[in-house]
């Protein structure tokens, strides 16, 4: 039963991914111009000028003069047949190298942020559910809404200024200048930690605020259920009761979203990363889209789509395992 379910879902993924890859490639190519327009614009801004003849030659070299479909076919066959994502025009390097190089810190940042969000949001959410309409609940709600309402980039700029002005830290990036190219040692780890908290807090605030609301709402649903009353009547200590029963059930919607976390692991927070000049994948993707580096941008979006689809599959499987109703319910 379970195997069939998985096989069916995997088969559904194939047409989805084909469609996604076509749409992303077309959307990237949709704006007028191509990568060379970016190059020309930059050269002209500094008073240099490229011969039109040379431009045409370059366009031919990069295959930019061919139709979108030919370019798409070349790109996708390269990926499927050779695992070759093509060359990034912006980086003059293979796309896979560009993405791989930044993957480590991106995942580190995402995982740390996630840990931060859960560590902060779940206890607070539980507290404000249990102590509903208390001062603490209002305070948490207030802070939560502020976190949701302020755009991340603004918090980023403010924290950037604070850390530069009052903590004397070097601005932007995840390392101080002397550690950027240094090999890993304790100093570098400490330096990383000293810088990492800023993006973690910034990216985490919105997530934390949302998570607090989810936990609070879920828990409130459960707290008035008869089984809680029964447990309480049987004399179970309040704390043990809370953690052992309603919290576990309230947590299930959170667990089911684990699958969605996969793509966010590598997309990072683009705007925050740009503002903070983080060595993560976010800025690379933005730049690729801006300069119409279609192989880099396309590959990025493709990888994200694959992760989204796979993540959804994983959470479906998890749910199916946890809840038999999902497995059998379709009949």
């Amino acid at each position, binding site marked *: 039963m379970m195997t069939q379910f998985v096989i069916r879902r995997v088969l559904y993924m194939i047409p989805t991914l084909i469609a996604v890859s076509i749409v992303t490639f077309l959307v990237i190519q949709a704006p007028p111009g191509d990568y060379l327009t970016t190059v020309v614009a930059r050269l002209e801004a500094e008073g240099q000028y490229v011969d039109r003849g040379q431009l045409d030659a370059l366009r031919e070299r990069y295959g930019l003069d061919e139709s979108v479909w030919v370019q798409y076919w070349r790109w996708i066959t390269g990926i499927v047949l050779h695992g070759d994502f093509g060359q990034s025009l*912006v980086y003059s390097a293979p796309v896979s190298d560009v993405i791989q190089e930044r993957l480590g810190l991106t995942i580190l940042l995402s995982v740390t942020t996630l840990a931060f969000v859960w560590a902060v949001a779940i206890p607070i959410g539980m507290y404000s559910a249990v102590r509903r309409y208390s001062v603490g609940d209002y305070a948490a709600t207030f802070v939560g809404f502020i976190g949701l309402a302020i755009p991340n980039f603004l918090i980023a700029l403010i924290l950037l200024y604070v850390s530069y002005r009052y903590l004397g830290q070097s601005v932007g990036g995840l390392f101080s200048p002397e550690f950027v190219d240094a090999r890993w040692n304790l100093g570098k780890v400490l330096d990383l930690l000293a810088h990492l908290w800023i993006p973690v807090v910034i990216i985490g605030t919105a997530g934390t605020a949302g998570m607090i609301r989810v936990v609070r709402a879920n828990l409130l649903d459960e707290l008035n259920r008869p089984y809680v009353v029964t447990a309480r009547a049987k004399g179970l200590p309040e704390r043990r009761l809370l953690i052992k029963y309603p919290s576990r059930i309230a947590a299930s919607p959170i667990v089911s979203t684990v699958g969605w976390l996969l793509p966010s692991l590598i997309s990072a927070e683009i705007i925050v990363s740009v503002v903070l000049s983080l060595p993560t994948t976010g800025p690379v993707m933005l730049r690729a889209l801006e300069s119409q580096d279609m192989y880099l941008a396309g590959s990025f979006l493709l990888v994200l789509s694959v992760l989204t689809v796979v993540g959804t599959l994983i959470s479906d499987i998890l749910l199916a395992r946890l809840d038999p109703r999902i497995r059998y319910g379709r009949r």
Partner: protein
Amino acid sequence: MPHRRRTWALAALSAVVLTGCSFFSTDADTGEDDDTPASDTAAGGPEAPTLAAQVEAGTLPPVEERLPDEPLVVEPVEEIGTYGGEWRTYMMGPDDDNAMNPIGYEGLVRWAREYTGASGTDEILPNLADYEVNEDGSSYTFHLRPGTRWSDGEPFTADDIMFWYESVLMNETLTPSVPGWLTAGGEPVTVTKVDDHTVRFDFAAPKAFFLHDMATLDRGVQVAEHPRHYLEQFHPDHNPDVEALVAESGLGDWVALFENRVDWRRNVDIPRLAPWVVTDPPNDGTTATAERNPYYWKVDPDGKQLPYLDQVSYSIVEDAEVALLRAIDGEVDLEHRGLNQGDNYPLVSENQEAGDYRLMTYDYDSMNIATVQLNLTHPDPVKREIYNNKDFRIGLSYAINRQEIIDLVYNGQGEPWQTSPLESTPFYHEQLATQYVEYDVDLANQHLDQAGYTERNADGIRLGPDGQPIVVTIDARIDVFNWTDVGELLVDYWAAVGIELRINPVSDEVRTERRDSNQFDAHFGSGLGGRAALIVPWNYVPVAAPAAYGEMWARWYEGYPDGEEPPAPVQEQYDLWRQLEATFDADQQEELFKQILDIAAEEFYQIGIATPRQEFAVVKNSMHNLPEQMPSGSPYPNPAPYNPEQFFKSE
């Protein structure tokens, strides 16, 4: 025996801690040997201590053997410097190639430090080579400096130039079309090797600006960026087995491989003639580094090998705000890129003391902060008719309150200006500078009435020949020069005389694309070529795409089938320009250019606003041998002509 193992582990741990290069060290571990002996004798010696140590260790030949027979002597701007230190700066993204211009400017010839854009060749100095020109400027002989070496120690000779000529320029796969600066009379240049240290460039016709192009980055400088001994392995003419290397590299074909290998900003293996050689490329990681070239061929007057600074370090920032914060935080030793925008000046200026830096003036090569370029070759016949009506343009010009724009947008810096080259140059043209610059609404209305657009709709907007209100949409780059602010003011000025202006804020890429496909009403242009009018002439004669006022004429001039034959005055300009390009004599050039400017003034192609304010660069106080002021803007790749190799840092 667990306790025993523990002891071993402890011993091992203490051993690594003691070496100082351990994981538990909290100092930055650069991966280099820390105990390089800073030899006392070398401190005042003719080479950097790090190189002296390598010589001592036998890994590098002595400095006399590394230098040319007669090294080029560079006069320091202030004083003889000391070795060491790094030049910290940044680049705006991994493909911000221009950020590395200052460390890549070693051509056969170079611009003089005090470049003024004067005609003639007085401001072009020998660099890797000395030069001779024949009478009419059609034959150029370069004498290379004997004994000059690439950064790997191989000699730089005429064969390297010939490799560039025969295998790169004349190779149709690598160079499908020979660029204009290397052709004359329809023929590409012929390069001949005279002897090991002499090459001659012959043109079919006189070539006015060949030496200027030779001194220009991305043009002549690339002639000396092709080390034959390294690059020939990637070229099928020299290596029949090149396909094996292509397969190994994973690139598509040998051309891709060759272009990848010749890219000195990203390929750390290519030998260079520059003071610093890229060792950590910008397309990997968030930094880039260029380190001292041990074979650099220039010395100071004391005979000390340059450069003084050990390395140039770029941090790659994605956002201009981060660059700005770094600069005012004092983490940038010398840079101007990305700082000269918006209202940054007051902020950067007031933080000088806190950040321990000073400001250096960059005298920007532009005659205008913003020119309004109406599309005179508009595809819509009605708009074309309106824009080509000179009275219409004159009316718009009179309607602009230039002093107010200067005061409100540009901190009061600059003066009202039409589109003449700057007053300090020999090309200054009074009519082109001052016609129609007064602010006079009555006169503006008078000209617009004269243009024939006297009818107005209920909102007071004048009606065009088709009975529709006249609406102009202007494309304004959002990232530089405060063009959208200028646009907002223009909206009001022109509404006051019955013309509706709409601003279309766009990125540079979109603007370029809209221009090149001729899909725009109007453009803001920068006044480049204020000083180097002969080198960057498109604001005066529409010979290239940035002349957005005559986009289709420029295409016609460049030989594109979809171009459009221009009217007689433009044709006349083109004739004069062709004549000028084939005239080597400086006085005659000036005479011809004056005629071109006469026509430009009469035709009044574009509307100027004001002369631009000067740019600034942030210079750390510990950086020395920099002037108070230097030119900036293409073709002058500031600060490279000021010999960055003689910049140095005090403690």
